[in-house]
């Protein structure tokens, strides 16, 4: 117990020294400011050209896959249900990083070589597809049976009732959990750095490797992720309010 406390106080001391070394030493402060300034643009480029497109493309593909998977699960057709179940179980039961490694480093062994960016898109889409399918399935099931029947009773077929009546209502229910998936995805794209995608976090690693300012660069990257996620949570709030217009308060 005592030794643990001592270790902790020692570490706090080190942090103090680090901060002191910055603020009592104008040269050090200037070096850090310069590095922060010059690395901002490369980091933003990593975000704009890789992190954000990777997120958007993977989410769009993943969501499509998720809807199809949810419908397969609810189809009442046994083989489809089983395939959907196995897919969801396999993706949710294995680490995302391992999946990315299988796609990028593993598949070439059997002659399938895929570039870093498409590999990442495949990995993330499969992931979103599995997690979001459970959200969408629950949302569809939460819509009362009477809504399907009302659709059928005015002559709709399954597709029409699904598209016009059920999915619009299910989407309202699923926006909050899907937003969580989306925000997680933004952060998870940092794992693509491990399969050579030069997204924001990999840029930070590359820059830090040249000047050894790890704390500065990783903190800077973290702040940019935070800003992106913060903006997304504002957008989420707006969408929720828009979709809530037909519900009594």
């Amino acid at each position, binding site marked *: 117990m005592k030794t643990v406390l001592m270790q902790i106080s020692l570490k706090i001391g080190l942090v103090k020294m680090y901060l002191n070394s910055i603020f009592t030493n104008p040269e050090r402060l200037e070096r850090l400011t310069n590095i922060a300034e010059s690395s901002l643009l490369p980091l933003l480029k990593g975000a704009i050209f890789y992190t954000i497109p990777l997120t958007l493309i993977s989410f769009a593909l993943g969501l499509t896959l998720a809807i199809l998977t949810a419908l397969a699960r609810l189809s009442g057709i046994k083989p489809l249900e089983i395939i959907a179940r196995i897919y969801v179980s396999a993706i949710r039961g294995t680490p995302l990083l391992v999946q990315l490694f299988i796609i990028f480093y593993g598949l070439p062994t059997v002659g399938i070589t895929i570039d870093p960016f498409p590999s990442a898109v495949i990995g993330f889409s499969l992931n979103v597809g599995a997690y979001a399918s459970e959200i969408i399935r629950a949302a569809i099931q939460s819509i009362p049976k009477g809504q399907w029947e009302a659709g059928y*009773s005015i*002559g709709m077929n399954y597709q029409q009732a699904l598209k016009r009546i059920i999915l619009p209502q299910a989407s309202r229910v699923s926006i909050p959990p899907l937003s969580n998936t989306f925000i997680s995805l933004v952060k998870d794209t940092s794992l693509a750095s491990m399969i050579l995608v030069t997204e924001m976090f990999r840029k930070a690693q590359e820059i830090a490797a040249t000047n050894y300012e790890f704390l500065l660069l990783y903190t800077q990257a973290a702040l940019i992720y935070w800003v992106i996620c913060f903006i997304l949570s504002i957008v989420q709030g707006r969408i929720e309010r828009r979709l809530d217009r037909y519900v009594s308060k």
Partner: protein
Amino acid sequence: MITIKGLTKKFDDLEVLKGIDLEVEKGKVVVVIGPSGSGKTTLLRCINILETPTSGSITISNSQLDFSKTVPKKRISAFRSLTGMVFQSYNLFPHKTALENVMEGPVIVKKESSANASRKAEQLLSKVGLGDKLHYYPFQLSGGQQQRVGIARALAMEPKVMLFDEPTSALDPELVGDVLKAMKDLASEGMTMVVVSHEMRFAREAADEVIFMDRGIIIERGAPEQIFSTPKEERTQQFLQMIQ
């Protein structure tokens, strides 16, 4: 207009309809009464094919479905379009306004232009007394108003027969009148209607025939006055005593 012959419906081992024979002539209003669980809702749902009957046949207008064979899906939707259904719990589309609820069928199913459908929907909503509520969402309407939107929505598909499943039983008493008035108007325009309802006054004023159902069979049928005042069967007498 409607001819039902030997209609049965089983849920697993539970036989809910045990051979229903029923005929409704064009323009007539039939009111179905009976204890809870006697199969009234199931009968309407079978006519609308929301449930697939186990055996028997249903003929509406000139189309016949025979349930001793399997019926193809295409025929079911065509057959379903002959009837309009009004649900006990309204089942309006909550994400659509009153007008959009009524337009939905004509635009999506019948592929009418939305200008056309909108004009027609407006007329129908005015007819049921909701001309000033076109752009309200269901949650902004009272139960009685919602049910009248439900009636307009079914009418928009121009069915040959209207089916009502206890349309007023979920309503506060003061809201029942407007819904019944809309139904009476419809009856006087010559719509063929099958109405499950225990509203005696409606049955007396609008029904051509009252049918008493119990445990999946039709026990007794006749003119409203006859059924309500001088029922022949003991079970009918007991039931009427209970609800009066």
